[in-house]
């Protein structure tokens, strides 16, 4: 060890002792930064602001995570005035002018959720603690969203949820610092039921296969409530382990059960496998109770549909957004995204892009990065031009209310992106549910937490 080193170290030690002594009377709490101390966690400096994008980079949802990240990069570019501006040009609020957020250049850090609540929280924490991220966004599952949302609440930063579809995110587990743009299983039920009635009538017998975890149960409960409301009878409902791979032993009993509709409350790899295998087992070609046997996949995703190949033909489901929408906002986004990356964005990419812009907009309108100001600006915010028609961020539960798409798997897709066609755009009024809906009842927002 050289002398120079030694000197420096002893200097550090000395300062450390002083620092500790100063800290003794009142231990500072988490966000006492030397500069820019304005009373909330990770207050940005004058030149830049850091956002944290927490997406699945490994694990089964890695492709979806990669698409989310593309959208985030695009959103950051547009906020900083690079590229063609995308939805900034169609957004009904016009305070964003391509100079970053409140004059600060937007920078971002990324983390890997691994689609596991532990890992997701840990990477979110490190982005907050190490990189000074003031907002966390992204994710591809409800478990992760709920876990990260409660972390952000405790840490005093804003959470703009990515793809999360279970009711709990803005129901039982809602938090004041968290916001969800994506739709939920209740909305899926409301949007899908009338279409199913029109297609398959009111006299149907349903068999549910449900992924055995929170989202699966949420999805089943919602769709069941609405199909039973149509007069459909639920014959059976079987829970399948997540990642089962081979669903044959769950699918074979369906044919002889007397059911004529199979609802697959599966997502991701489970959906790909259960749907393809259901088709392999001939359920699609079967007649039951004198009717064509039908399969319904309540939550459709184009990225997943690709994995199922031709099995998706004529299968109905719901989705948050699809690139073939013709409104100006969607078109602008697809154009920017497609030009940048060469293929159209997924619904996950869309929701992440929109969430980033909404956050930036709320900060600007609220005039502060303080999470409480952001919460105030977002609560009850009405906007348009983001691809789903007029949209409301409801103050009571921080859920966005907007149009929901009912889609169908195309029979003869033109190319590998053209897999779904929009059957119906269910208007916002039809999917809006009351604040005191029993499936959402237990939750409490609490109050916004700016950290300290």
């Amino acid at each position: 060890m050289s002398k120079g080193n030694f000197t420096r170290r002893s200097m550090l030690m000395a300062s450390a002792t002083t620092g500790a002594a100063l800290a003794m009377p009142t231990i500072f709490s988490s966000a006492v930064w030397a500069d820019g101390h304005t009373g909330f966690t990770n207050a940005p400096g004058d030149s830049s602001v850091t956002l944290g994008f927490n997406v699945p980079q490994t694990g089964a949802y890695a492709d979806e995570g990669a698409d989310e990240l593309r959208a985030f990069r695009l959103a950051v570019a547009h906020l900083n005035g690079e590229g063609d501006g995308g939805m900034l040009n169609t957004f009904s609020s016009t305070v964003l002018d391509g100079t970053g957020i409140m004059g600060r250049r937007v920078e971002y850090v990324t983390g890997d959720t691994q689609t596991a609540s532990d890992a997701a929280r840990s990477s979110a924490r490190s982005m907050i603690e190490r990189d000074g991220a003031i907002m966390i966004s992204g994710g591809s599952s409800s478990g992760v969203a709920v876990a990260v949302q409660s972390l952000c609440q405790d840490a005093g930063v804003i959470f703009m949820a990515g793809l999360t579809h279970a009711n709990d995110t803005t129901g039982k587990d809602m938090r004041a610092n968290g916001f969800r743009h994506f739709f939920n299983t209740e909305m899926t039920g409301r949007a899908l039921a009338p279409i199913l009635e029109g297609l398959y009538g009111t006299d149907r017998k349903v068999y549910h296969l449900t992924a055995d975890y929170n989202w699966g149960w949420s999805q089943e409960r919602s769709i069941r409530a609405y199909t039973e409301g149509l007069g459909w009878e639920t014959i059976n409902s079987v829970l399948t382990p997540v990642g089962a791979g081979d669903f044959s032993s769950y699918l074979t009993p369906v044919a002889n059960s007397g059911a004529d509709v199979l609802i697959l409350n599966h997502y991701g790899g489970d959906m790909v496998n259960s749907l393809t295998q259901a088709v392999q087992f001939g359920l699609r070609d079967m007649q039951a109770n004198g009717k064509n046997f039908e399969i319904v996949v309540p939550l459709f995703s184009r990225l997943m549909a690709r994995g199922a190949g031709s099995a998706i033909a004529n299968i109905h489901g719901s989705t948050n957004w699809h690139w073939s929408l013709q409104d100006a906002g969607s078109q602008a986004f697809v154009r920017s995204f497609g030009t940048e990356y060469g293929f159209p964005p997924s619904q996950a990419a869309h929701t992440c892009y929109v969430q980033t812009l909404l956050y930036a907009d709320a900060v600007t309108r609220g005039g502060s990065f303080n999470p409480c100001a952001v919460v105030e600006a977002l609560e009850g915010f009405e906007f348009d031009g983001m691809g789903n028609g007029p949209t409301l961020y409801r103050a009571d539960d921080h859920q966005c209310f907007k149009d929901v798409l009912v889609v169908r798997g195309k029979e003869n897709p033109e190319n590998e992106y053209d897999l779904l066609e929009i059957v119906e755009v269910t208007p916002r009024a039809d999917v809006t549910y009351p604040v005191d809906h029993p499936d959402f009842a237990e939750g409490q927002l609490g109050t916004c937490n700016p950290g300290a």
Partner: protein
Amino acid sequence: MLGLKKADLRLFLIVVGLVVFAPFLLNPFPESVGMAQFNAGYPDLMQKLVIFGIFAVGYNILFGLTGYLSFGHAAFLGVGSYSGVWMMKLLTMNVIPALIVSVIAAGLFSLLIGYVSLRRTGIYFSILTLAFAQMCYSLAYSVLTPITGGETGLTLSLSDPRILGAAQAADGNIPAAHIFGLGMGESAELVLGDWSFTFNVGYYLSGIVMLVAFYLAIRLFRSPFGLMLRAIKSNQTRMSYTGLNPRPYALAAFVISGMYAGLAGGLMVAMDPLAGAERMLWTASGEVVLMTILGGAGTLIGPILGAGVIVYLESIISTINSSVLHGWFNALPDWLENTLVNIMYPFVGSGWHLTLGLVFMLVVIFLPGGIVEGGKRIAGVFKRNRAEPSGDIKKSAEPGE
């Protein structure tokens, strides 16, 4: 002093020093340079480094001493976490009861699993533990959701019936975990020029617990009990014909390591009150095996080093993305910058698993004794060359065994 031999005492003091000064040691780069990416001195990572240290030190008592390769220790960590959160939900946000109950619950659970699994040895034992852990994971993820929170994980809510303490803090939020009023999230910040060092309450609590756990492990290693555990690994037949019953010894080691795992699990939720089912997955058990072997199974300091390296790699490498890489090399000519970024990109960010896989293939192939053996070899080279005995690796490695 402390009932330790000189070499052990020195090792212990080194670890004490590392723990105390970690906020400095882990933040060697000033904030503004690109290398700051490699800084690890923030609470989440520092806490994880010591918590996984505890986990690995405990696992080493089983695997390193008795040679029983358990693939199910993550289950005990999970049980510790769940019981910790439940204590915080039901009793108090003070972490002490949570930690105590975590250790007890994990101990009881490991007694049960160990009693059954230890009826077999070799890979049969490994598969039994794996089977139990996978069952725990699957059930926790699905059927046991009311107890475990399922996919989301078990977390606190505003309506918890906390007996000693309020369900909500004054500001209407969930109260924070604390130790006698000192919040786990509270930190003191020390800014020196371009450096900033964070001293976090949670980290120092974990650190102290880790030091106690490590101290107990040293005592155990040097005790007659430790001798017997090594005898199990060495020759079980001889052991029983020497009048010793290997089963209760192995079971005791199993339970002790299970309690260490439970303690680690309890600390995890004390630092961040959410217990996810994934921490019970068999790959999580595999990770602690790796930590132990990477550091050097059967050595004192090895597991701590192994845990440090793996946790650090996971946290740091996985957050390096392409823009960070471009940031590092942007001084270079474009073609060189792009080439370097393209070479490195598959190994960082989402590719960190690849790096992890490679690292431990290399370690197992070339350094079966782990980092400690590597340190010894380096030390050996230095001694042969009669060079100044210096270097941190040597210091920490030398008294390992």
